[in-house]
């Protein structure tokens, strides 16, 4: 039987007002997974969250001043895997240099990448031509 997969390619202005739109698309995609046997509400929340965090990351730290002001998000979801790529045109950063939060210190910031890493199986951020890409994937079975 042919395996069903969905690919969604989105470009939105790099403004936080579009976070809810992107999050909602992520939640709706999770609900399309007919054969997912886990808790679908939890998966929907997790996709919403990682998309939100990745987009905020692209807006705050990765957008260069002169480039076009769009965040490019690619979501590919099959019965077995969820893959998300978030592209930016900024200078980028070293994701491996971002420390795990110190739970004994109360910091206002620094939990975004930790949340992404906690909820996804694979996370990497690398340079590509004309920018960077944050890649994340998760096994769905």
């Amino acid at each position: 039987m042919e395996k069903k997969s969905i690919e969604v390619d989105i470009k939105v202005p790099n403004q936080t007002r579009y976070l809810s739109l992107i999050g909602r698309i992520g939640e709706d995609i999770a609900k399309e997974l007919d054969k997912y046997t886990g808790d679908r509400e939890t998966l929907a929340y997790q996709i919403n969250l990682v998309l939100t965090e990745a987009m905020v990351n692209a807006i705050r730290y990765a957008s260069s001043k002169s480039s076009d002001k769009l965040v490019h998000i690619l979501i590919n979801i099959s019965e077995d895997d969820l893959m998300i790529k978030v592209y930016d045109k900024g200078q980028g950063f070293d994701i491996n240099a971002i420390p795990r939060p110190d739970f004994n210190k109360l910091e206002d910031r620094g939990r975004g990448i930790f949340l992404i890493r906690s909820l996804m199986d694979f996370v990497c951020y690398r340079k590509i031509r004309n920018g960077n890409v944050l890649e994340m994937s998760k096994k769905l079975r």
Partner: protein
Amino acid sequence: MNLKTETRNNIIIINVKEERLDAHNAGDLKSEMHNQFEMGAKNMLVDLKDVRFIDSSGLGALVSGFKNAISHQGNLKLAGLQPQVKSMFELTRLHRVFEIFASASEAQENF
């Protein structure tokens, strides 16, 4: 951001009337808490019962409010966390920092 702030029995109650508390609106909640403490508030309760989604910026705003409370010799408690929202507090260990109550009325009895 839609916030409803009221005072009951000397407790400032901030009702977050939003489905999402995220990087788009968390700054508004942070400012409201800050302003209330600056105006002399000591006891603050943030009611999150309408919030279905919270991200790291939303958590960060509440942490900021909590630290603000301490620096003003006050306290900040939370109420009405939906299950998925509560799971974010657990994942980031913030459930060990905040006093969290099932409902606003229960929280009010514990100031």
